[in-house]
């Protein structure tokens, strides 16, 4: 069976972690192992931007991936950036092993609204599906309701479903099968 690891980088609330765990095992059929939570990499914080470098997070994830794990999924509450962009909901190695989702901008509180746990978990599911899709080699989908559609704003995240469109779903299945064969 294919193994995927989940790791919390900095503090992440339990419901988010268990949501990720359920999704990876049920949607993709991974055997999921939770690694011990770890602090964000020291070099990741950018004082002038008050944000965290996703690049440093990703490097850390790639380094700590256990040899038997085909994917490693990082979750964080820290607000992520890459140098050229003002923020990120998440990041993944296209066709690679590591992916990362930040809950910072998926929370209602970030926008001065009252907290809504159910909504947060739905958004987390969509972003995990999206980044996992990238690690399986999928690129953005033009279907606005598909989890693989590019979303650069919260409205766009909320527009899509927490599921793939038919063609993306078929690609995910095919690539997961290939992954299973590799594992054997």
């Amino acid at each position, binding site marked *: 069976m294919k193994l995927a690891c989940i790791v919390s980088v900095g503090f992440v609330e339990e419901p988010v972690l268990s949501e990720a765990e359920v999704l990876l095992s049920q949607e993709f059929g991974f055997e999921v192992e939770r690694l011990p939570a770890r602090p964000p990499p020291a070099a990741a914080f950018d004082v002038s*931007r008050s944000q965290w470098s*996703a*690049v440093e997070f990703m490097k850390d994830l790639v380094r700590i991936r256990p040899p038997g794990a085909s994917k490693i999924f990082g979750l964080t509450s820290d607000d992520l*950036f*890459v*140098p*050229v*962009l*003002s*923020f*990120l909901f998440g*990041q*993944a*190695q*296209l066709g690679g092993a590591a992916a990362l989702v930040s809950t910072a901008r998926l929370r209602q509180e970030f926008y001065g609204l009252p907290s809504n746990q159910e909504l947060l978990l739905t958004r987390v599911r969509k972003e995990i599906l999206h980044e996992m899709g*990238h690690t399986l080699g999928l*690129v*953005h989908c033009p279907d606005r309701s598909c989890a693989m559609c*590019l979303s*650069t*704003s919260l409205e766009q995240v909320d527009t899509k479903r927490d599921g793939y469109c038919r063609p993306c779903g078929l690609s995910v299945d095919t690539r997961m099968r290939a992954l299973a064969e590799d594992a054997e």
Partner: protein
Amino acid sequence: MKSRWQILIVDDEEVMAESLAAWLREDGYSVDTASSGRAAVARSRETDYAIYFVDLKMPGGMDGIETMMEIRRLRPDASVIIITAYATVDTAIAAMKEGAQEYIVKPCNPEEISLLVDRIIKVKNLQLENQMLRKRLTGQYEYRDIITKDAKMQAILELVRDVASLRSTVLIRGASGTGKELIARAIHYSGDRASAPFVAVSCASLAESLLESELFGYEKGAFTGAAAQTKGKFELADGGTIFLDEIGDISPKLQADLLRVLQERRFYRLGGTAEIQVDARVIAATNKDLAGEVREGRFRDDLYYRLNVIEISVPPLSQRRGDIPHLARHFVARLSSEIGKNVDGIGEDALKILLDYDWPGNIRELENAVERAIVTTRNRVLCADDFGFLNSLLRGPANVALPPVPLQDLEKMAIEAALGRTQGNIKEAAAALGIDRSTLYEKVKKYNIERR
């Protein structure tokens, strides 16, 4: 379709370039990075990137603006987006003045970059589509558009390029369906007359008097039904090229008229009194043996020599069999979208049938066969069965009863035919005959057969 377009990111900070590249790759683009202006210019020589993201401040002697200017010189169609960390009005103005399409300040909103790239690609797709449609609409084919890997055809295309900008008359010879008009268009559209009209006249399809008025035009009242003054094809082709197809079929009178136009570059409209001067390059084509027609007195020798300044002889498809797969694939791609059927390609078994067939109707026949196969097929990839109708044509002659001849003569004939078809290629001929190479060598020696 996104993957067709390639993007180059030029930034001395690797993490910057790589993070933007990763972001764009997730969007489905093919992205490369370069760490300096010089590296970017070197890469742009090799690859035709559609979009360049160039960092304004880079060390090493070549800053963003210089890099952009060099790229724009090499690749005028490319779009350059300047990235900077320090927004100043001066640099923005300087960048736009030198031809930057956009100017972004990092860190930028992810949405901004996505929209920007989408917008540029949309315009590029439209430009490409427009070019293709225009080409289809006007038949503006250049020598590059002719599909061939055949050495003889390559030599012809070289000649096409060489003579494109001359004024000399060209005579194109070749069996029907070999693409004589395509060659004529290629000459016209590859030369300095490309922006002027290309006027094609099929001399065989019109009666003598009609052809005369068609070529030279007429004045009002020149004949019954001549209701208004009308320009002829020669006048319409002024500054451009007139293509006279099937020139071997014109009457002696028209031969004389044509000779006069070729010699003096002037003529009268039918019923006209004013001399009209034209500058039209003449390209003529024929599937007849014009020299033979001259010998037999059916074609004027002086006109023949006027026309035959540059002679291009287009080989029949059976002499350039190597091109059959390329042409077939090209027709499948073009016709399946035209016909609106989902056919992606052509299978090896089908190609074998096409390679074995003799194509008396040449490329036109091949195009028609592919069209027929696409229309009738139920497969995504054309297979041998889809070309079954060619088989019945192939088998036709085999049923003809042969007169009794010595077996040796038959063998010799079969070997000569095979060598003829493969232009002397022993390996291919042996494969076609179903014997091995050494056997074929022996038999060639035994029967004293000449290998071209």
